[in-house]
């Protein structure tokens, strides 16, 4: 053995370790990839070796390669191997690798469940710690479900190191397995008051994370947090709590009132900037929530703003940044208090730090007014020119547009100025926001009627200079503005001075290089311009100009007819044919202008973006109903390719005009008009008709006379600066006029009303340069007021929106692992499931029904409870914090299930054990009050499984049968005492089966042993030794208190009780709990077993002290532990083909067994074999079934079970004859007792 180790480590010397790998990579800078691929080959070789040290080394290197971007998922299984090493060094390497590369899609992750569980209950706290850390990175819903209970137990571990990790990981468990939240929450809440500050901080952390997503469920914790806030000195905890309050206050304004004072105190007292900042933030949140209804907290606001100003003025850029960030929150509700710091914020725009500039920009958005808009935008335009890097410049651009267009252009007094700004922005090269500018241009031109003339002139100039914008069409997003320009020029062509020139500009050959959707607009609007030109020259006989225009179109359009873009092609060819026809008419001197203009008659109105969605569904219309019968599957598949074409249509297409002759067009138009007249959802063109359909929400700002004091046109490309100057002049003039008037007024009504308006002019005083009709967007009638819920349906936190105040129902508990295939964990964890006596199980059927009823009732109860809670909270909020906490406790006491908490007891070998407060000795508890008498998680997954089975059976056959069922399936473990009469089952086809057999009993205590021992073998230790876990339930039957229980077993050569390190071979183990009267609890003991082919019996003694009020006595109970061969079998599924191969292989030796007088249905029989002897059914045909199981040391056991007339014959095969013989004997015994 020692030689092997030495040899192994000598081998290792020549392997590359991580440092060698890193060094090698650094030495191969030129051919790094090649070097790494040879390394990976080496690693693959190393992973094939048996030596775990070599494997761990390989995995360690893989972790490094993973960081460099290499996929190492192929080694997932090896990682699991290293994780399961018994040495901490390797285990840690394994877990680190797993945490770096495992995820939900990793299939081997399901193999880790038992290993992790084992590590969680390891006596070494660092094993547990490393497992928790790893698990936190790769926990999956399955792992979360299977391990939730184990982790919850760890939350009460004796070591704070484990406790804090366990608490923290619960958050991940909740996310993956939301059902665990309610059962685990009471304990989590307890941890808020853990003596260890680390644990406390972890609990605060988890609850804050939870509450951030679903704050309303955590309102009831407010008093507790309030107490923590006033008592804690840990800044981390304080910050978290204060952040949490920030999330809670919007839901409960009264909480805010309470908070203001302590928070203000903290702001004054703390020296920690981070804390100060969070306090300010939360105060702001409070003030926002209070802003309606509360008289004035101007003092607090002033304090905040003042503190923030200090932050912003600080030389530390981080503080400056955060100051601005918080300022923007105040801005939303108290813009006035921020606006006074405009100087500071404008100053920040010049900061060299981009983050700070961006924050300052955000603030500007809320600071603009009619007065300062132009000035601010001017400043921003300067920045646009200076800006390096497109990201920041684009950000500026969007901000300028946002600022100007906010709340329906509220602050714009001069739209000409705005259009010129937009036009100036088009000079930006390489911006991504061309479409944004375009949509603004369209928006303004359509909605502000007075500006159209000006806009059209500007757009015409743009079109004329299009070559400036389209330097590089592919990259340049700015050419999008041409889309808008062309459309505006076409649609409002009546304002054009020289439509012919614009038309010419739109038909230049270079246009063909523009993106398709823009070309399409060009072509369409060329036709509009054509109509305008024709009308202009209407009446002139033999108009040369009109004919020239036609010719121009006929010459230029063929270019577009050849376009690769379908939309362009189609439009161009339609219009080309139309123009050709018109040309013919022109040559015959027919008046066509009227008809051509009619093509584009009518006006477009803006429609609100959500209008379509808000059209109410008419009564009687079912959108989900099929109009026709749904087509069959195959047809729909055939149709799919068609959809491809539909997709290709460009988005920006206006409704197309079909090519038909004039008459037909006229007829159709007429029909359409008719239709539109009858259609209430069609938005009418003329404003007059709109008044008829006075839809709610559509308000028209009356058109006011244009103030001619400002010239409407600036020749050439506009400079927005000019407008600024003009505007200032205009305002001064206005002011002067107003003053004159005021003076007059003052003279008239002296002293009666004194306006304190002498200072800077107020908002209202500034009249727009020319009042404009801002057409609001139209909405359909009866628009639904509903607004969309913006919650992301994929948000994992949605599932955690759970009412936590509701008392726990029976059905809510963490799944406890089933007893069989899994590995060791701390004794306490199974307390709940296995400690329930049979009688309660019997009830489970009834209970289930009840649960359903409860569910139905729950909603009602919930409402009531919520009401109650509100009342409670109200009280709490009014009362002092201390009192609040008290009432919190009483509340808890009122809901006992939530308080079945754990008392901590140390177990010598494994972990902490939680004492189950539920009374197993009082099994006949009132069925009416299951909530109160049962522990929160009595129902284990095992029970559930069984129930499911039962239900299934019930469906199959509704037989009424009585079964006498013996719970004792072992020969004679406890002498006569051991035979315990089973319960009489009524109307339950499949009797409940228990794994517990009586071990020994006296007047004080009853010991029950689980028949199906937990079995696992240690990986790496291979065949030579296996471990068996025996769980024993201790039940106190007396009226006295039992303590100092010690469990001891006389070891045999083959089987030994595992004792903690340092203990002698005959030392006894302390049972890690004490038993109050009537209470039962479970402890687990680990045995190591060498050979498993024979059953074993071990003699043992339990000593304990019985303590009653008067006296205490020392008592002793002897017992015999019986290890059956069955207990070494693990239920292992087997596929029928693998099974057949196994039988064919010929390695197995046969044996058979005949049972007479078996009076039970075949499926019961199979179920019994499966349950008691750990087999799984491979195949079942009528009254014949093949079954399989595997021993912990890898022996295959195959059974063929046949039945006819109360006779059951079992043919069995196994590669170990004596094991098989013993198993068959045990099966025989099982059935002989029936």
């Amino acid at each position, binding site marked *: 053995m020692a030689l092997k180790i030495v040899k192994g480590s000598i081998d290792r010397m020549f392997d590359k370790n991580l440092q060698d790998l890193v060094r090698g990579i650094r030495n191969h800078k030129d051919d790094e990839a090649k070097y790494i691929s040879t390394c990976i080959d080496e690693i693959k070789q190393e992973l094939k070796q048996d030596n775990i040290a070599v494997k761990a080394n390989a995995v*360690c290197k893989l972790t490094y390669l993973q960081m460099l*971007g290499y996929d190492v998922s192929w080694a997932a299984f090896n990682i699991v191997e290293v994780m399961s090493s018994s*040495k901490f060094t390797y285990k840690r390497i394994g877990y680190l690798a797993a945490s770096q590369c495992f995820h939900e899609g990793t299939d081997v992750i399901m193999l880790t469940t038992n290993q992790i569980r084992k590590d969680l209950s390891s006596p070494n706290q660092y094993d547990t710690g490393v497992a928790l850390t790893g698990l936190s*990175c790769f926990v999956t819903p399955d792992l979360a479900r299977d391990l939730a209970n184990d982790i919850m137990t760890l939350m009460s571990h004796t070591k704070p190191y484990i406790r804090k990790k366990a608490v923290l990981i619960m958050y991940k468990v909740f996310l993956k397995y939301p059902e665990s939240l309610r059962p685990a929450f009471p304990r989590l809440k307890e941890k808020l008051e853990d003596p260890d500050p680390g644990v406390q901080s972890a609990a605060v952390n988890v609850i804050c994370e939870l509450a951030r997503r679903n704050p309303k469920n955590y309102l009831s914790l407010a008093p507790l947090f309030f107490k923590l806030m006033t008592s804690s000195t840990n800044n981390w905890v304080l910050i978290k709590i204060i952040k949490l309050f920030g999330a809670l206050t919007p839901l409960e304004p009264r909480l805010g009132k309470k908070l203001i004072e302590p928070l203000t105190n903290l702001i004054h007292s703390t020296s920690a900037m981070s*804390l100060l900042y969070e306090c300010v933030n939360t105060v702001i949140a409070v003030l926002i929530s209070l802003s309606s209804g509360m008289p004035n907290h101007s003092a607090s606001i002033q304090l905040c703003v003042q503190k923030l100003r200090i932050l912003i003025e600080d030389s530390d850029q981080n503080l400056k940044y955060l100051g601005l960030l918080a300022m923007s929150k105040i801005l939303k509700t108290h813009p006035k208090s921020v606006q006074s710091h405009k100087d500071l914020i404008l100053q920040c725009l010049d900061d060299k730090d981009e983050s700070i500039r961006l924050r300052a920009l955000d603030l500007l958005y809320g600071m603009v007014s009619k007065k300062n808009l132009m000035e601010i935008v001017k400043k921003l335009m300067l920045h646009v020119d200076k800006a390096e890097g497109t990201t920041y410049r684009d950000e500026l651009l969007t901000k300028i547009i946002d600022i100007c267009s906010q709340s329906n252009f509220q602050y714009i007094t001069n739209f000409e100025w705005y259009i010129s700004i937009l036009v100036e922005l088009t000079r930006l090269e390489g911006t991504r926001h061309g479409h944004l500018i375009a949509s603004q241009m369209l928006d303004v031109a359509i909605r502000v009627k007075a500006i159209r003339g000006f806009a059209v002139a500007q757009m015409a100039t743009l079109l004329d200079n299009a070559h400036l914008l389209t330097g590089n069409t592919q990259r340049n997003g700015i050419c999008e503005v041409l889309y808008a320009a062309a459309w505006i020029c076409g649609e409002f062509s009546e304002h054009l001075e020289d439509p012919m020139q614009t038309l010419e500009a739109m038909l230049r050959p270079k246009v063909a290089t523009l993106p398709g959707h823009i070309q399409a607009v060009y072509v369409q609007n060329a036709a509009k311009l054509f109509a305008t030109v024709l009308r202009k020259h209407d009446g002139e006989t033999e108009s040369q100009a009109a004919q020239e225009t036609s010719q121009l179109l006929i010459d230029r359009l063929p270019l577009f007819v050849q376009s690769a873009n379908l939309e362009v092609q189609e439009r161009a060819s339609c219009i080309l044919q139309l123009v050709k026809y018109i040309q013919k008419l022109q040559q015959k001197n027919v008046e066509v202008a009227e008809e051509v203009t009619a093509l584009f008659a009518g006006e477009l109105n803006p429609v609100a973006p959500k209008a379509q969605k808000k059209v109410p569904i008419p009564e009687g219309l079912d959108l989900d109903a099929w109009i026709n019968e749904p087509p069959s599957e195959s047809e729909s598949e055939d149709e799919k390719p068609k959809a491809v074409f539909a997709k290709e249509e460009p988005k920006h297409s206006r409704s197309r005009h079909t090519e038909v002759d004039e008459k037909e067009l006229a007829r159709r138009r007429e029909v359409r008009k008719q239709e539109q007249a009858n259609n209430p959802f069609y938005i009418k063109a003329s404003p007059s008709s709109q008044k008829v359909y006075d839809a709610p929400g559509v308000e028209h700002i009356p058109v006011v006379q244009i103030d001619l004091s400002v010239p409407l046109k600036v020749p050439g490309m506009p400079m927005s600066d000019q407008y600024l100057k003009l505007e200032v002049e205009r305002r001064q003039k206005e002011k002067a006029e107003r003053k004159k008037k005021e003076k007059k007024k003052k003279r008239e009504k002296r002293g009666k009303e004194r306006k304190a308006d002498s200072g800077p002019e107020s908002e209202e005083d500034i009249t727009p340069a020319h009042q404009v009709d801002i057409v609001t967007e139209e909405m359909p009638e009866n628009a639904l007021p509903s607004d969309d819920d913006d919650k992301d349906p994929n948000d994992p936190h949605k599932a955690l929106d759970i009412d936590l105040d509701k008392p726990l129902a029976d059905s809510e508990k963490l799944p406890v692992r089933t007893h069989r295939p899994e590995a060791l964990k701390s004794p306490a964890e199974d307390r709940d499931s296995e400690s329930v006596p049979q009688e309660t199980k019997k009830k489970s059927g009834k209970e289930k029904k009840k649960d359903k009823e409860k569910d139905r009732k729950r909603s009602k109860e919930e409402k009531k409870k919520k009401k109650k809670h509100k009342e409670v909270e109200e009280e709490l909020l009014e009362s002092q914090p201390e009192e609040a906490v008290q009432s919190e406790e009483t509340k808890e006491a009122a809901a006992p299930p939530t308080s079945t908490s754990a008392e901590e007891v140390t177990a010598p070998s494994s972990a902490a054990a939680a004492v189950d407060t539920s009374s197993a000795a009082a099994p006949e508890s009132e069925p009416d009050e299951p909530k109160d008498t049962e522990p929160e998680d009595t129902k284990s997954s095992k029970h559930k499984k069984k129930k499911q089975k039962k239900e299934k059976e019930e469906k199959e056959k509704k037989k009424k049968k009585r079964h006498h069922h013996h719970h004792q399936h072992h020969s004679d473990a406890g002498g006569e005492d051991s035979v315990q009469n089973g319960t009489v089952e009524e109307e339950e086809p499949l009797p409940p089966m228990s794994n517990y057999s009586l071990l020994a009993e006296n007047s004080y205590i009853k010991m029950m042993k689980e028949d199906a021992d937990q079995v696992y073998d240690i990986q790496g230790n291979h065949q030579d030794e296996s471990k068996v876990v025996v769980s024993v339930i201790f039940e106190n039957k007396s009226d006295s208190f039992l303590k100092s229980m010690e469990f001891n077993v006389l070891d045999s050569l083959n089987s030994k009780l595992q004792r903690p390190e340092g203990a002698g071979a005959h030392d006894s183990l302390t049972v890690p709990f004490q038993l109050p009267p009537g209470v039962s609890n479970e402890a687990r003991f680990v045995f190591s077993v060498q050979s498993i082919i024979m059953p074993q019996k071990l003699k043992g003694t339990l000593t304990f002290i019985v303590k009653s009020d008067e006296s205490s006595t020392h008592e002793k109970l002897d017992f015999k532990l019986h290890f059956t061969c069955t207990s070494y079998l693990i239920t292992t599924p087997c596929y029928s083909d693998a099974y057949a191969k196994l039988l064919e292989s010929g390695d197995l030796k046969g044996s058979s067994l005949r049972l007479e007088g078996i009076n039970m249905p075949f499926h019961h029989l199979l179920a019994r074999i499966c349950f008691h002897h750990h087999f799984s059914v491979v195949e079942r045909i009528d009254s014949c079934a093949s079954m399989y199981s595997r021993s912990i040391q890898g022996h295959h056991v195959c059974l063929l079970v046949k039945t006819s007339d109360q006779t059951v014959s079992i043919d069995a095969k196994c590669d170990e004859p004596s094991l098989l013989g013993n198993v068959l004997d045990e099966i025989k015994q099982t059935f002989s007792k029936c």
Partner: protein
Amino acid sequence: MIKAILIFNNHGKPRLSKFYEHYTEDTEQQIIRETFHLVSKRDENICNFLEGGLLIGGSDNKLIYRHYATLYFVFCVDSSESELGILDLIQVFVETLDKCFENVCELDLIFHVDKVHNILAEMVMGGMVLETNMSEIITQVEAQGKMEKSEAGIAGAPARAVSAVKNMNLPEMPKNINIGDISIKVPNLPSFK
């Protein structure tokens, strides 16, 4: 929640990457590259916050970073974390590294990335801050180191000897490349216990 912790050097070479959400290796590399790109072009003496780690998470997220000599320490966090708190956490992390490696330098991180991971695991777990008290962190790290040593025992001795020999003929292992001004001004948050 902390979404990711990255350490890379002035040239963008990753020295440690810890993602608390799953991404493919390619995406991870892309995130590292992009983060490096964002962070590296920022001057010293400007704020340590960057909005929009474009690849991770979305608008709720922030990059909070510190630059020490040749290394960038970048934390990607969401809005539930306090910005200044995380800055301090980075400081605690670096100081802890400094204690554990005795004058930490980039080479320590290059050759002992596993150890760095282990130290980090004592501070941040699954994206949540586990411990901020430096002495507590060091105690736990050292206790685990001791365990490792005792496990290696006699069997580990030859391997250690070999690696010592391997290191001996390496002129390129300069120790004491100090990470420079570790005492970048921290907004004072003194009571971090």
